[in-house]
């Protein structure tokens, strides 16, 4: 089966413009019309809560408005958990009557995703001699916000490896699994990727999932790569942890933010798992060295939606700086609430996981003025990055989600792996692992060097969120 278009329609006894105006208004107007969006405008991001049933929590469908004909048509491109399109048409049927039709496009992989979610087993693809690479990413759950472009970028890297002859004469095939931002699901999916014959598993997931995956498949010898930013940690030589480290992010950002704001009392807020705990440990070291004081700290369970108690605690603590290590949908909910509750007037915020996708879902208004420090931004003014973004847009179109440090690291990790695999003899995973422990390369973020399994040398850059993206700052400032 290719793509299928599902159609539903209904005649509503209300004026066309009234019905149109309900879209995104957060009323009880059905899950399609109760989409979450700040402004109904072409290019703006949309989240729809899909009731997947089976006693499970609703899953966020992440998308973007691509065309509007008020009050007659709304078109949304869907990015996760599947790529497709949602077209809503409103047709005037007399003065007080409107015919509403929804066309929803879903492809094979979307159907497969839904079936997996409802308990259908993952089937082994028949052995076709392909060189299999596994990608574990978050297509659902709070992590889908930061992981939204990872699959696209992995597909692009694999296409480029294949255009360059594949690996050891074999076509590279990407197998993708969704961890649902849940460690147990991630561990089960990683085991499946190994059973399916993947020679490397790339995990663009939270540290919580990564830890569970390492426990599940860490002993089997298949290289496992955490390319996205993380708090670090040991492990055997074939378990690679690259990505930005919180201590380095803080070293770049904390001093300049205190100098710019004249503030020094920090409140630390994070999700209650290894990443935030590791990042806050780094903060307890770095912030006092920069003459900062820690006024308070709060951890919330991953998946928290109500941040009012945390924001009250920040206010009570007298802090004038906030360090947020929240991730994905949690960071989105927190920053939006901070803005709504007027905290921005009292506190400057440094956010360690405010990538392009998270920033646009926080929204231009609520994100303005937030600081972060990463190795990659779309704004990097280099020839490599310009060419990379042009390839991404020509492959996935103008409405695909923005590239971020997380998705660029997924792309670059695949090319680094490809380079290492080509240096090794065929079917000698030990040589690939050895090559991956000492490798230099130019990737879209610039020049990087892998030194040992748990470190990547790269330049971090300070940036401030602004309308439509980030403004790069001089970290000496």
């Amino acid at each position, binding site marked *: 089966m290719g793509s299928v278009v*599902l159609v539903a329609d*209904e005649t509503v006894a209300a004026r066309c413009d*009234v019905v149109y105006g309900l879209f*995104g208004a957060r009323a009880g107007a059905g899950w399609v019309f109760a989409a979450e969006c700040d402004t109904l405008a072409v290019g703006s991001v949309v989240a729809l809560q*899909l*009731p997947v049933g089976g006693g499970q929590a609703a899953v966020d469908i992440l998308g973007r408005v691509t065309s509007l004909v008020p009050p007659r048509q709304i078109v949304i491109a869907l990015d996760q958990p599947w790529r497709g399109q949602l077209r809503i048409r409103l047709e005037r049927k007399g003065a007080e009557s409107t015919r509403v039709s*929804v066309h929803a496009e879903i492809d094979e992989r979307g159907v497969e995703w839904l079936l997996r979610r409802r308990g*259908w087993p993952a089937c082994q693809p028949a052995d076709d001699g392909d060189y299999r690479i596994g990608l574990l990413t978050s297509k659902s759950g709070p992590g889908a916000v930061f992981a939204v472009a990872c699959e696209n970028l992995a597909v692009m890297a694999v296409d480029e490896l294949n255009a360059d002859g594949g690996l050891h004469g074999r076509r590279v095939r990407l197998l993708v699994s969704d961890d649902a931002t849940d460690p147990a699901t991630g561990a089960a999916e990683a085991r499946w990727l190994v059973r399916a014959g993947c020679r490397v598993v790339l995990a663009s997931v939270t540290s919580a999932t990564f830890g569970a995956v390492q426990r599940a498949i860490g002993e089997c010898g298949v290289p496992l790569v955490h390319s996205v930013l993380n708090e670090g940690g040991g492990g055997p030589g074939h378990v690679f942890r690259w990505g930005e480290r919180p201590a380095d992010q803080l070293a770049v950002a904390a001093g300049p933010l205190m100098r710019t704001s004249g503030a020094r009392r920090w409140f630390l807020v994070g999700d209650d798992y290894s990443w935030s705990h590791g990042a806050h440990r780094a903060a307890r070291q770095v912030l006092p060295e920069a003459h900062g004081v820690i006024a308070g700290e709060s951890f919330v369970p991953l998946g928290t939606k109500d941040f009012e108690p945390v924001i009250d605690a920040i206010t009570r603590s007298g802090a004038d700086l906030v360090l947020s290590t929240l991730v994905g949908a949690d960071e989105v909910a927190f920053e939006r609430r901070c803005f709504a509750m007027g905290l921005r007037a009292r506190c400057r915020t440094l956010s360690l996981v405010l990538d392009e996708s998270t920033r646009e879902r926080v929204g231009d208004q609520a994100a303005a003025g937030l600081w972060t420090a990463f190795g990659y931004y779309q704004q990097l003014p280099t020839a490599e990055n310009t060419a990379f973004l042009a390839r991404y847009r020509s492959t996935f179109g103008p409405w695909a989600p923005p590239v971020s440090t997380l998705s660029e690291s997924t792309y670059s990790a695949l090319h680094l792996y490809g380079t290492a695999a080509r240096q090794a003899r065929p079917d000698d995973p030990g040589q690939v692992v050895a090559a991956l422990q000492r490798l230099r390369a130019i990737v879209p973020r610039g020049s990087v060097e892998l030194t040992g399994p748990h470190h990547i040398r790269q330049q971090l850059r300070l940036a401030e969120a602004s309308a439509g993206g980030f403004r790069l700052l001089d970290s000496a400032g």
Partner: protein
Amino acid sequence: MSTHLAFDALADEVRRSILQVIADRGECSAGEIANSVERVGRTTVSSHLRVLRTSGVVIERRAGRYRYYSLDPEGPARAALEFLQGLLQSSLRELKADAEALAPGGSEPRREAG
């Protein structure tokens, strides 16, 4: 076969392990399945296989006195599409209820069109 049946069949943990065994091995006999699913006895496995067959999730093939089972991906795929179609339709029903409660006399929209 209705959406309901296929998704109900998948909602049970033992049935999911049975399906995983079939997915990993390809077509296999009731005996092989019962040997691989350790938590429950042979009779229970048989009755689960009957549910899976009648709900269109697995295909049964008889050869002599043996029965062999394989996955039927088309049934569940159809169920998934029907499920999504049902969700779209129910979303529009809720929209209708909300819009008509809001605007019996054509009151102002909550957001300006455009």
